[in-house]
């Protein structure tokens, strides 16, 4: 396990929830459970399953979601109110008559999450996940997004008009590049 990476967080408001914005995506190995500052192992495990259900991508291994859980851990460390929100939310998810959240079937997990989707706990987890999972270059690669092209001089010589499954528009509509 590598030394913990530091995260820069900014704040903005999306969907009425403060969202942590990642400056750096922490590195997490796929085959190891990361160490956490404030989250207990069971809390981290619950949040891992929860983040996978919120944005489920079979193309992504657990490492991508562990990074989100690490973001939540960092947010907990920075703010006691967030720590309580997450701890209480996880405890509630794990107190269902169907047993622990991590042990439920997919459909049971989905039902449990639908039941809490309007709570501040769910919205906190979702908003942090939204802003970190899809801001991770490893996830971009897995989902086919190439991201910035400034270092290669833009897409002008790297496929901005390489679509070949439709005819090219006439030059009157779309002039040739300079």
């Amino acid at each position: 396990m590598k030394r913990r990476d530091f995260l820069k967080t900014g704040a903005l408001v999306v969907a009425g929830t403060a969202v942590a914005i990642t400056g750096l995506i922490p590195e997490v190995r796929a085959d190891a459970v990361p160490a956490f500052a404030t989250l207990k192992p069971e809390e981290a495990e619950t949040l891992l399953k929860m983040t996978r259900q919120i944005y489920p991508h079979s193309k992504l291994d657990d490492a991508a979601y562990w990074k989100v859980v690490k973001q939540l851990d960092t947010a907990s460390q920075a703010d006691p109110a967030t720590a309580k929100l997450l701890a209480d939310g996880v405890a509630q998810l794990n107190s269902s008559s169907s047993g622990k959240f991590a042990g439920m079937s997919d459909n049971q997990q989905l039902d449990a999450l639908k039941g809490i989707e309007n709570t501040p706990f769910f919205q906190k987890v979702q908003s942090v996940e939204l802003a970190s999972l899809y801001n991770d270059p490893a996830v971009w690669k897995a989902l086919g997004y190439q991201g910035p092209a400034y270092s290669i001089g833009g897409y002008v010589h790297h496929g901005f008009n390489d679509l070949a499954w439709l005819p090219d528009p006439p030059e009157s509509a779309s002039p040739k590049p300079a």
Partner: protein
Amino acid sequence: MSKHELNDDSVVVIVGSGAGGGTLANELCQRGLKVVLLEAGQRQSTATFHNDEWFAFNQLAWLDKRTTSGNWRIAKDFPNLPAWICKTVGGTTVHWAGASLRLKEHEFKTKTIYSDVKGANLLDWPITLADLEPYYAKAENKMGVTRTNDIPGLPGNNNFKVMYNGATRVGYKTVHTGRMAINSRPREGRSACWQLGFCFQGCKSGAKWSTLYTEIPKAEATGKLDLRPQSMVLQIQHDKSGKATSVLYADKDGNHQLQKARLVCVAGNSIETPRLLLNSSSSMFPHGLANSSGQVGKNYMRHTTGSVFGVFKEPVHMYRGTVMAGIVQDENGMNPSRGFAGGFELETIALGLPFAAAFLNPGAWGRDYASLLEDFPNMAGMWIVGEDMPQESNAVTLHPSEKDKFGLPIPNVHYDDHPNDIAMRNYAFKRGAAIYDAVGATRTVEVPPYPSTHNLGTCRQSELPRDGVCNKWGQTHDVKNLFISDGSQFTTSAGENPTLTIVTLAIRQADYIAEQCTKRNI
């Protein structure tokens, strides 16, 4: 860069450095006037821009808290972010996509031509297209708009290829890569477009026109401009005769400064501009400065928008290259048989994966949404920009209790969609989907409006002082040395991206101000 004294009452003070304020500053400096340009945000550059959607959003966007109300979906999805505009030198010209379209003749006369649209507070502009044509020509030349001044169009990217083929298959005729203030060839010391994408995040190649690196450096070169970034204007003050005399602002350290002024031009975008006038109320102007009509803050418009994304079997990679890479113009005329007044443009739009996840269906989660995002590489996108109806009840007002860090009431933005707006959006959604279906879309997605970038109309121009806030020059009816210099002065929204018209009005206003100063009328 020059420095003007705080007690120099010969200066023009301009509030805001975007399309209106930044352009006006340069135009006035070129005419020999001294200008103090107060900008709330910091100064960035092409070197400090980041091709990173979240980073750039935090770096550039206006994130001061605002509240919302009304039946628009923004109030649910983004209750504290009604607008996606910028707090930085250059204002929203740092973020804009570059589409530069003239208003149409009929769009200046909607009260006359649309006749009575129930619930709409329509009004004819006090100017016509003919009044603006010479100034549109100057603006297009200044901004280097493609398909004007012998400047070739930009090359279309993959996103445009999809739009072009679909649109022509459903019968649309006017489909091309648009009139864009993005260099298709090197011009005026700025490079041709690199097709970076990330137009919204600040153009790192400098190919897209922004006052940040065109108007403002030119104004600085005259020795007449004193640009003060990180200066948040709090109040415009006046004397006993009702003439504006000075501008109170908080500097970068939070200290209050009082800058004297010969005249004051407000260009803070259509939320902050009326907020400043409302926050400048006094015993002489109890309802806000220049508000004898009661129209300050009213008639807030934001264009009828929405997006359509199509998913295809083959890759598109819509994010490669210019964000607004092409346009369908066949729907921009007046054709009441469609079931609504006014018209709209369809323009390509693209989001990177981080913002696609945030905006394609705000709040959505689960398998279906994740599966849509897995189709990201095979997605094409287009944006609807159409005329929305002015309504007096759609308004920027001062929050009754919440205050900002300077102790001033924050703005609330109220917007209800007019039935005409809803009819237009629903029609445009169907047309957009038809375009993508014609080239084999496996799925089309109707995406609700993003936080507003086209904020308009809250200090509108009017012939009669009772109908609006300013006259045909942007000069307020009540205070003759106070001007509205941004999109707030739009009488109606028209179905075109507004920046070209804001720049055009600023050039024209500069002529008028210079003339009035020479004649000592101001």
